């Protein structure tokens, strides 16, 4: 299944349009997506940005996704670096 990933904050500039797609097995969940994203980042992104992934949360439009969770039905996931609002 194709997962559409949106990047925010310091990760925006890692991909054109701040988006990328990863093709995962149909039974993949959040844990598998995180592993695939890390592998992609380590081969395509500058090292400091790839290492930032360890501090990033994954989310859909409604909530944070935890390791072990299923992927959202719409196939859209956001990568959230540490936040700094206010």
């Amino acid at each position, binding site marked *: 299944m194709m997962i559409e990933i949106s990047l925010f904050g310091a990760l925006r500039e890692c991909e054109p349009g701040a988006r990328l797609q990863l093709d995962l097995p149909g039974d993949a969940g959040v844990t598998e997506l995180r592993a695939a994203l890390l592998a992609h980042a380590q081969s395509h992104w500058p090292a400091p940005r790839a290492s930032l992934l360890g501090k990033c949360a994954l989310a859909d439009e409604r909530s944070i996704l935890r390791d072990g969770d299923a992927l959202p039905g719409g196939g859209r996931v*956001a990568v959230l670096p540490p936040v700094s609002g206010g």
Partner: protein
Amino acid sequence: MNPHHLLVVDAAQDRLDPAAAIEFVSDPAFGGIDVFIGRVRDLNHGREVIGISYDLFDALALNGFAQIAARAQAQFGPHLKLYIAHAKGRLAVGDLAVVIAAGTPHRDEAFRACRMVIEAVKHESPIWKQEHYVDGDSVWSEGCSLCGEVADHDDQPQAHDGHTH
């Protein structure tokens, strides 16, 4: 009518309005209103700042604001109106980045609800700040990781990953 007004304001089109916040949380039964206004300042960690760009995941931010407001309602009771607004896009020094207003029957709940909400917005909302410096450099702030569990309903400033806000 929903007692909470939650919004993201694109700086390219509009600006935050504290008067609108006060008007929204006003009520004949409310004797206390507390307002927090966050502005862009001109110095951070010794570097001269000329502006900040805010990036937001709008949909999740607004859902998060609603969850924060619901927690405030659970903590401070039904006699509470909240206004939560955050800017996105490029701001200059002095521009308003965030406006929180809380209206309640008495001042104590207004102060505490406002404090609880701004701390939660700062530490939980999917918002990212890139500071622009006078020397032309720009840096994304390090911030708070959302990987762990959300802090228990903050109403006081706390250390987060070794830093405080």
